[in-house]
């Protein structure tokens, strides 16, 4: 599983999510994550059609197919639940 994290430096919610993700990543070393800046990485932003709310988290399976998209601030518990439920994808 891979998670694409879209955020921006001006987005307060994205700043709130940064340390939350850091904790989740430390607790799940197997997890692959990538951060993309909304303003500077327009190609991938357009590819995944990020145009409404930030932060946006896109969960991809082994075949790089999107199976879940979360918008806005998400609790650590909710993130861990998603990861545990979809660990084998």
């Amino acid at each position, binding site marked *: 599983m891979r998670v694409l994290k879209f955020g921006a430096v*001006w*987005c*307060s919610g994205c700043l*709130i999510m940064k340390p939350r993700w850091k904790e989740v990543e430390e607790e799940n070393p197997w997890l692959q994550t990538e951060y993309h800046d909304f*303003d500077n990485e327009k190609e991938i932003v357009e590819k995944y059609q990020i145009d*409404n*709310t930030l932060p946006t988290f896109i969960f991809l399976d082994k075949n790089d197919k999107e199976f879940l998209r979360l918008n*806005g*601030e998400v609790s650590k518990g909710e993130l861990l639940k998603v990861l545990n439920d979809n660990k084998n994808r």
Partner: protein
Amino acid sequence: MTRIKYLIIFLFTLFFLFSSPVQAENKVNVYFFWGDGCPHCAKEKELLEYYQHKYSYVEVLDFELYNNFSNSKTLSSVTSILGTRVDGVPFTVIGDKSFSGYSETISPDQISERIEYCYNNNCPDSLAKLFEPESNNIVADNVIEEQTASNSNKIKDKKFINVPGLGEIDAVNFSLPLITIVMGVLDGFNPCALWTLLFLISLLLGMENKKKMWVLGSAFIIASASVYFLFMAAWLNFILFIGFIIWARLLIGGIAFLGGSYNLKEFLFNKNSGCKVTNDEKRQKVFTRLKQIIQQKSFWISFVGIILLAFAVNLVELVCSAGLPAVYTQILALNDLAGWQYYAYILLYIFFFMIDDLFIFFVAMTTLKMTGISTKYSRYSKLIGGVIMLIIGILLIFKPEWLMFG
């Protein structure tokens, strides 16, 4: 001799027939309709009291409208007699002429000229019949009712509540500062104003010169607060200038009602707590300008540039506040305060409006790490702000006297 006697009697009669012996006792009635807490009314009341004290022939009959329903009925009769429309208070009738509103630069001269004219020319008193002895009970009733209203106001003015830990608090004196703080904080959670500051901080954190980092960041915050102060002060003066016009208050009440409804709609139907991506092009332009300003080698160019940019960005973002500062200044205008107190309250509002910005800035500057404020707070501020705006909107339209705290 008899002829001379008759001539003297004739001349004597003629003299007293055409001269005006009552002129010396000529009374000028000033009918003054006003509202409790209306600052323009307070100023005119002061002026009329001065005239009444100075000139024995001036009698001021005053009718308070906000707390006295029978006076409102009297005003309706007055407008029917005069065949005029009353758009607001103060409303003054001298002789057969009425004055709507009060302006410090025009009204004192107009009123004193009119009093003098009526005294010298015995101008017809259009309202005399309404207040003649047989209908004098209206005035008498009003005096009694006003006295009662004034007494009950005195009791109302001293409402003490017991707050654990703080003791007794005068609810009236406590209300305006409290509403200032609450509205300032709620306005501050508006995310529109925050994005430029966050981007600026991200640029400042990359600087080597820490002193420059502090100065430029502080300049941006102070300039942003100044724009808000100038806007609110200008708006307050505008409201105080046109404050006697009822429709202005109704219009702002309508804005508060719509703003409150919008905030509640956002809370109920937009449960997503993230940052909305809007105005991509405008944001990119501002970011490019900010980068150019920060990268300037000359400190002074950066300093002036950041102040100008703060002014420009904040002026545009004022629209985003859904009318909160406009509604707040209307509440201020309803309260009869000294000039400096109005500005002190605006400063208090701005301090609490900026408190989240100050928190983010100081944390970032001291820890050299960016921090945000959860957008969840912004969502709940929409709920609380929406409810408060709705209540204020309704009160501004139907019960403005409830918003007059002092």
